[in-house]
């Protein structure tokens, strides 16, 4: 199982993602100018501040050569995980529905969040039962999930919601408490919380590791 972790200029969670993937297989960095994803079994578009994100989070990063290759990889059914800024990149690229807006409180927020698995099927949620709770940190200033009501209805009807913030834990004003969604095919998952920061008891929680292990299990 070989993971690729995309690295943009200015991205900053890629080492953490590499470390997390490394616990569920082998992992390597994928420089933003690389187009060749040969040999990769899964791709992580990590969190961080790609290209400074001054215009709109993820807006510039999605045009990188690596992201073009990731779009093809996803279209061919390859598992792709977008975390935080990576979720935004995938939304900007049209690989996932919706958009992420400034937090309702207009402040960056970093805290441990309680998530509830919402039932979407994907390689990443393979070992996770609907209704299970996971403790995973969030840290973002632009993480308020938004989609027009019809789109939200459709996503929910299709079982594309992967995670919601537990009642009372919505840190940013996300519509319908949505923390993460999958595409229609189920092979692309984006979420605002950071599973790569929850892979060791020493640093707080191991719940995030389950997303990485899920893929490895499916791929195996």
């Amino acid at each position, binding site marked *: 199982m070989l993971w690729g972790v995309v690295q943009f*200029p*200015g*991205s*900053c*969670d890629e*080492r*953490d993602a590499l*470390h997390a993937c490394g616990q569920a297989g082998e992992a390597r960095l994928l420089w933003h100018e690389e187009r060749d994803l040969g040999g990769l079994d899964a791709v992580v578009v990590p969190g*961080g*501040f790609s*290209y*400074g*994100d*001054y215009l709109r989070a993820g807006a510039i990063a999605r045009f990188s050569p690596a992201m073009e290759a990731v779009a093809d990889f996803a279209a061919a059914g390859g598992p792709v995980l977008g975390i935080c800024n990576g979720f935004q990149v995938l939304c900007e690229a049209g690989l996932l529905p919706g958009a992420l807006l400034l937090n309702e409180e207009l*402040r*960056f*927020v*970093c*805290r441990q969040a309680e998530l509830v698995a919402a039932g979407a099927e994907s390689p990443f949620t393979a070992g996770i039962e609907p209704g299970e709770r996971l403790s995973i*940190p969030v*840290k973002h*200033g632009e993480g308020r999930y938004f989609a027009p009501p019809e789109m939200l209805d459709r996503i929910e009807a299709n079982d594309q919601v992967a995670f919601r913030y537990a009642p009372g834990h919505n840190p940013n004003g996300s519509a319908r408490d949505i923390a993460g969604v999958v595409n229609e095919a189920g092979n692309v998952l984006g979420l605002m919380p*950071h599973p*790569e*920061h929850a*892979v*060791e008891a*020493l*640093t*707080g929680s191991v719940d995030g590791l389950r997303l990485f292990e899920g893929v490895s299990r499916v791929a195996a």
Partner: protein
Amino acid sequence: MTVEVSRHRELGLTDAEYELVVEKLSREPNGVELAMFSLLWSEHCAYKHSRKLLRRLPTEGERVVMGPGENAGAVDVGNGHAVAFKVESHNHPSAVEPFQGAATGVGGILRDVFALGARPIAILDSLRFGELDSERSRFLLDGAVRGIGHYGNSIGVPTVGGEIYFEAPYEHNCLVNAMCVGLARQEAMVRAAAAGVGNAVVLMGASTGRDGIGGASVLASAELGDGDEAKRPTVQIGDPFEESKLLECCLELLEKGLLVSLQDLGAAGLTSSAGEMASAGGVGIDLDVARVPLREADMEPFEIIVSESQERMLGVVEPAKVPEVLAVCERWQTGAAEIGVVTGSGRVRVLRGAEVVGDVPVEALVDGCPLYDLSPAEPNGWIYGNRATLDSAAPAEETLLALLSSPSIASKRWAFEQYDSVVGSRTVRRPESADAAVLAIPEAGNAIAVSIDGNGRRVACDPYAGTVEAVLECVQNLACVGGEPLGLTNCLNFGNPEKPATAWQLERAVSGLADACEALGVPVVSGNVSLYNEGPDGPIYPTPVVGMVGELPEPGRVTGSSFAHEGDAVALLGPFAPSLAGSELAKLRGVLGAGLPSPDVSAVAEACATLRDAVRAGRIASAHDVSDGGLACALAEGAIGAGLGCRVDLAPLVERGCSAEEALFGEGPGGFLISGDRAALESLAADGVEVLVLGEVGNGSLDITAGEQALVVPLAAARTAWHSLAGRVEGAA
């Protein structure tokens, strides 16, 4: 001549200093040279009122890898790795524009650390504002916290700790001190000394604009014509994206061994970087301003060499390696230009193409500034104001709630949740979960503990004892997580040292710092001095801020500061002799005055050693140092964090002569509140350290008895008071 005289004065040089410049040059300086001297001979660069004092600080130790004089200090953490760290102030820029001031403060201290070849792994911040009921204080607080978060969060370095105090003397002159901690392979580290005549000087990072051309603006108005709005010096704007690329680029260059030396550009820009690199290496440097990439085309040479544009570094490179260096910069999309050469001349020469526009001896520029003796005089009593906000007849319950909601004591969650504290996957203890932040260092098979402390009010009461206490508090915070100090950094924030009272504070504080470090065997490896912090009503509280890095073997063993289990015993460990002098309660009652009890450093050190061993051995369940607000507040904090109350009796303190109030709310160094198995806690006394069992964890309220006073406060009420900061910042905004 008269024009020149007024110009050097406006640039901050005294007539005598100007005469000395003329003597060293054997002629009058031109405008470029005058700009260079005025900046490098400023207090900020030359430390002319503090350098003699700083010589008293102990700087040597077995674990010291780099000491003061380098961009940051560094200590050995084992397995060929070093931890580099330094604290620096950005007070004046933050008082003008708090967001950018604080952001660029973080950017600057990060560069100091990666200039050594260390990857930054943590940031801490120490902030001081006026009282929270002032609109200006809330504006500065909000901006500074956002600015720190913006820079640290964007660049991907966790902000893991800090402190915030609110006191009226900081109303006009807030303090924003930022500390950065980095990790390096010792082999890949470099010093800032330029070497190798003929080597190229390469400027990397952002282009150069008219940012922060502070005092030298006098030259702008003289040389460019008055009233030219667009050419006025401007606020420095931070760009963490640029710095992120520059950071990765520099670390890659050092890993590949492509740099002879590296230096960040801070205050006084190219002039100080080039001057200091040349001075440290005993060489000269030629700089061609025509080759400096500019943000605005029409900049004058003096503007280019003193510009404080952010996100720039200066590297010395062997000529053959220049193409490879440029290629690495290109890959990271970071600017790079060969702007000069190392010479054997011992001079910094500024060229514009073929024309020499400035030529000064390095020695005169960097080390020629006269150093001044202070004229200290102890002021007569308490020189700061007092404002009572709490009736001294208030019942104990009300007093406790007032203390818990006092913004200096209340939880700082509102602030630290705006900081990414987890990026990097090293953060074992986040803010508020323990007294010091803990970061895993798998590279060396251990962990470090970091803390930053300094209660300016207590230093104002007694500069010597207060500074000793700041060091002790830091050591105590490390001990709570099992950390043993490896080294210390400090930032001395004071008023105008030319005033005898401030000079006395500074002199006493440095003596306290030196003596405490000496007694504890902790070397000072880096630091910073910020003087002239004054408002219209006078100086700030004298505020030495102490940052420490400690080592601990096993991060998995670290306990937290909150109680852990119902039924655990609660005890006070250490030589704690509480007093209301200088306490938060004395402040609320408006009865502050000069004087603090003398701390017993060696007794505190013994208690720290005992606690450290107990934590490392896993013998206790929680540890928290007793600081602001005394034992009652420490108990409340332990309880609130756990969601478990406690029932304690402070009789052992009262029996030895403490008043009920002193036992409840008195402050002083040396006390730890610990909890755990009763026999295990009692056994710690075997080391000769005092352990007083006070009661036990449990029940839904804080139930504290002290002699004739008894208070019962429901946990929910305590929690509401302690978490009142957010409402008071936001609600009023």
